């Protein structure tokens, strides 16, 4: 319940923050919303000696439209994501997923940056970002670089981010108007991590699927962007055969572990069920929005 001691820093700019990280090295950790890190510290499973609180850094906030992209500052909270009408218009998948994360209090402080950066396979945003083909901006002593969400996750709590880098922004290509979307999450209770979750984005024209993107959550030690599942849907009529093919492809891509939520056979089965529901809902939406 009681964390170990540390020194607290609250830089006013991104440059100051990355400077601190570089100076303090391994002993330092950034603090975003704190709702992944602080629980770990209270259990003494994490014990950074320095915390760098990012809450005052203006350049890490905000949701803006830049051409064909939506750019979200890493310190944007789940609550802000849900409240943004612009985001709900352009990328409604995000609000749908954010509403299924944790509970109201956690959503007030938990950030999108924190949710995508720490590599926790249970988090909802990483798979979502892969589905959306988002790009993460990383700022460090060597400047700014971009890494695709689909290339970012390497293992449980292992990502492409260097220890001296801060994930500063998330760039999301705005999906085509009228696209279909769904975030379907099976969970033991509201606010729990997913037993299995599927993010689906697709576009439809003339009764056929033009493009499809599928990502699965908490079914492996990283989020799983199931490229073959999307490929199975693209060009199809989104009927039973195509859906079955997508599920089969998805099952080949995931590698769930047994835990309190259930054994592997169960997880594989519900992963398929959840994906089918997500595809069905995304299709329905695409058809409704086209009409």
């Amino acid at each position, binding site marked *: 319940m009681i964390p170990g001691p540390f020194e607290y820093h609250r830089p006013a700019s991104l440059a100051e923050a990355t400077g601190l990280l570089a100076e303090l090295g391994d002993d330092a950790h950034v603090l975003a919303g704190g709702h992944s890190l602080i629980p770990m510290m*209270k259990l003494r499973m994490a014990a950074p000696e320095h915390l760098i609180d990012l809450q005052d850094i203006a350049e890490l906030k905000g949701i803006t439209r830049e051409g064909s992209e939506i750019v979200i500052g890493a310190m944007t909270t789940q609550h802000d994501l849900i409240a943004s009408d612009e985001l709900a218009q352009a990328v409604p998948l995000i609000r749908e997923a954010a509403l299924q994360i944790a509970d109201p209090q956690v959503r007030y402080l938990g950030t999108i940056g924190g949710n995508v950066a720490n590599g926790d396979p249970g988090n909802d945003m990483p798979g979502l970002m892969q589905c959306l083909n988002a790009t993460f901006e990383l700022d460090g002593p060597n400047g700014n670089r971009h890494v695709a969400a689909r290339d970012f996750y390497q293992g449980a709590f292992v990502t492409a981010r260097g220890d001296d880098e801060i994930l500063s922004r998330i760039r999301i290509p705005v999906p085509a108007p009228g696209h279909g979307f769904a975030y379907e999450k099976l969970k033991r209770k509201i606010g729990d991590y997913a037993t299995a979750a599927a993010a689906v984005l697709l576009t439809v024209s003339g009764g056929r699927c033009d493009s499809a993107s599928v990502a699965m959550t908490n079914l492996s030690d990283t989020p799983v962007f199931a490229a073959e599942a999307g490929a199975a849907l693209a060009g199809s009529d989104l009927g039973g055969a195509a859906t079955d093919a997508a599920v089969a492809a998805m099952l080949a891509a995931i590698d769930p572990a047994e835990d309190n939520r259930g054994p592997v056979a169960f997880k594989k089965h519900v992963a398929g069920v959840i994906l089918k529901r997500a595809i069905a809902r995304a299709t329905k939406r695409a058809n409704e929005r086209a009409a």
Partner: protein
Amino acid sequence: MAKMHVKMTVNGKPVEALAEPRTLLIHFLREEMCLTGPHIGCDTTHCGACTVDLDGKSVKSCTIFVGQANGAEITTIEGIANADGSLHVLQEMFREHHGLQCGFCTPGMIVRAHRLLAENPDPTEAEVRMGISGNLCRCTGYQNIVKAILAAAATLNAEKEAAE
């Protein structure tokens, strides 16, 4: 470990103290400020018994370090009553509708309900249940808590209409 200087506003009063950076806000409020309304019910940020209002947000004070709250405006259950000292409608409705038994979840529940009604002054039952999904109760089964919150909303809305 050296202590840090913190300043914040709690229930309308300015507060200044020295605290270890690792001090959790819940402990700062309960031990330093002697505000024992918010409670500790778990250690994994689930139960919500520690809920306070911070800069217009419902937050779990067990998962915030005191430095993060530097400069913030915080309201606990002790600051929920009306300015003239009379009970807030939510407090009255919790009593009217038997929305509490052991009382341990009640401070966090009322402070959360207060912010919920600010977010959504006319919630449906489903919206109330979602809205308090971060606050656990073991005694009431939630039914009368939901009733109390809906009753408070109705009363507040009627008062607002009457004033207009």
